[in-house]
């Protein structure tokens, strides 16, 4: 079997006495889409934050394409993209400059303008490319967050409720995009309360409840 693109071993996360994510192991393979669902407060977002390196796990290791997220962080981060449900942006950078910055940081120096324009047009943000993100609506900010993740090279895409603030048209466009990424061999893990999403995307459905992960 192929090497998992995203792997967690003995991962757990607690906040003081409260155990948000119980010890778990997971693997996500190339071309797989995992839709994680569960009630509010089940620990889905905490798990995603741990897997993306934004929240340090209490115990356990995370590997992205075999690279340890904390020991070989540079290599691991080059292959990982995360979209939070409420993205925050630099106050002083415009939408366009955010994309420019991410491209530069990830080593995309040539042809970034075409990529950026195409991403902004796809998500209907082209008209707002010179605007500061704090003037964008919630849905538009989420679209910008998704654009920042998609503009750079990655193998693993993690998204926290990506369709929650999107209009129907943008949501279906995103679904198409995710299917294309899966067909190109990316591993995708996302949370959603929409139970039909896994079927739409042709992916697996995992469930989380009270910090326990049930893989379907």
């Amino acid at each position, binding site marked *: 079997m192929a090497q998992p693109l995203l792997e967690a071993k003995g991962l757990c996360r607690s906040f003081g006495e409260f155990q948000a994510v119980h010890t778990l192991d997971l693997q996500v393979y190339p071309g797989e889409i995992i839709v994680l669902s569960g009630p509010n407060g089940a620990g889905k977002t905490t798990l995603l934050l741990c897997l993306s*390196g*934004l929240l340090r796990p209490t115990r356990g290791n995370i590997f992205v394409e075999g690279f340890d997220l*904390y020991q070989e962080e540079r290599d691991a981060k080059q292959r990982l993209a995360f979209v939070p449900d409420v993205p*925050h942006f630099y106050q*002083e950078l*415009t939408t366009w400059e955010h994309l420019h910055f991410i491209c*530069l*940081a990830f080593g995309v120096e040539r042809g970034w303008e075409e990529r950026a324009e195409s991403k902004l047009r796809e998500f209907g943000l082209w008209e707002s490319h010179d*605007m500061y993100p704090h003037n964008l609506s919630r849905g538009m900010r989420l679209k910008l967050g998704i654009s920042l993740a998609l503009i750079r090279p990655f193998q693993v895409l993690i998204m926290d409720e990506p369709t929650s603030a999107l209009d129907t048209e943008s949501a279906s466009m995103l679904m198409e995009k995710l299917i294309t990424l899966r067909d190109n061999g990316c591993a995708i893990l996302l949370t959603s309360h929409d139970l039909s999403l896994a079927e739409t995307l042709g992916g697996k459905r995992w469930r989380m409840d009270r910090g326990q992960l049930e893989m379907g």
Partner: protein
Amino acid sequence: MKAIWLVRLRDLAGRMRFWTAIVGYNPRDRSLSHGIYLIYVVIFFSLWGFAVLALLASLGAGMLTMVKGLTPTAASTMIVGAILLMYAIWQGYMSGKRSPFIFSETDAELICQTPVDRRQVALAWFLVDWIPGGLVFGGLAIVLRFAILQLAEQGGVVWAHLPGYLLAGLQVVCIILPLHLAFMATDYALGALRLRGDMDNPWLRWIPVWVGLGLIILAITSIQGFQIILWPVLFPLKAGFGEVYWLAGFSLAIILAIIGLLSLYWASPGLNLSRAAQESRFRWSAQQVSWLGDSQLRREMLTRKRLGVGHQASRIHGRAGAWALIWKDWVTTLRAMNFGTTMGWIGIFWVYLGLILAPDWGARIWAFTIWSLLVSQRCTERLRADLKVWAITRQLPFSGRETLAAQVATPVLATTLLSWLAMGIISALGFSPMIFLIVLVPTTILCITLTAAFDILRHCHSSELLAGQAAELGAGGVVLGIILGGTPMVMVSWILNQYHTIGVICSGTLLGLAFAGGITYVIWRLTASSYRNIN
């Protein structure tokens, strides 16, 4: 009419609640013991206030003696008159630019949509706003009046002088308050005139500016004419400071206050409250955030307002890799540049100049403390701004060290250059700055910055950062920075004071550099580690 005053007084009570909570007084507690406690609090803070004003009066006395060619009374009249006029011109300009009447969302819905008497609204809003400004001017006038008494009696405050001091303080307050009220009421009247109906009158804001320019020209060309024009203001002030008959000055101040209030009363019937509410919504939110003590949110709100809707893409050329962090730093720094940030940098420069020129160790330590505080705050601003966008910063394909280095590099470099510039100016003026300061300053700045960064990072939590909230710089970080940054300087300075040979100067400076470098390296490792291990 009662409803308007009720709303306004409730607003005032809401503001006062912050202060009553600080002193542990609960307005709802009607018990006798709590009443006695209130009396105790009033007496205690009255005495405390008096002591503080008397203490400040010593500084004021020193300042008055520095004004050559003028008696302390004339100098006090000049100082208070100048500040009052500048305040009135500035406030007048601002009132002509935006509504001086600030309405909350609730006020906008409950008062501004109803056909209440606009004059009552204007008066109620003005009087509550007048109180804080009046207190500040009252305090300033009392300090200067006490200073005049101290200079006259050649001694500090003693019990025998107490009634005299209290009477003098009361006399000056009774004059400065109506004077301040007169100016402020006129400014509000100007604001009310601008807000009449739906027409905007942008030219109104320039009236105070023209008046100010006219006064400056008059002061340059004919000082007598200037004094004649300003006689209605200067005479009451002279009376307040005991130079002329008090009752006459007081009467004139009261007449001016009445004229000011009448002008507001005359200008406000056509006041468009809806426009005032629309214009003041942002200021009301900023005020609320300030009263809650959330300076971080207030700064963000002001920055967003200043930045506006958008901006053309920066033309600064960026390079791929970790250089992108520097590119982003330059773009954001240039965009965030405003009067406040520029003054912050100029402040660092001036304090460092003061540090070099300080005549003794006491002054040097004070200057170094203030300088370190400014450096800690200024050089960690970018780090804190980046921490607030944790989801982006953490995902970047750089190690914690690279990110940290990029975040502090530009401000540390800028501070170093400013410090060297200060030393260059000192040399050009004929002074000889100590060579070890030139050598040690980059490591000292880096050490102070990294210590501050370490303090911020160890108080940061991922969950808060994900919500866009970064920890503030704590007192511990500042104090540690002062100790760690200052120790090598003190050490080298002590060695150089003992021995004056060129060999000792060179070896002492190198030893200090090595010591400072060692400390900075240890702090660097600790800070990079805490960056990596934010929990």
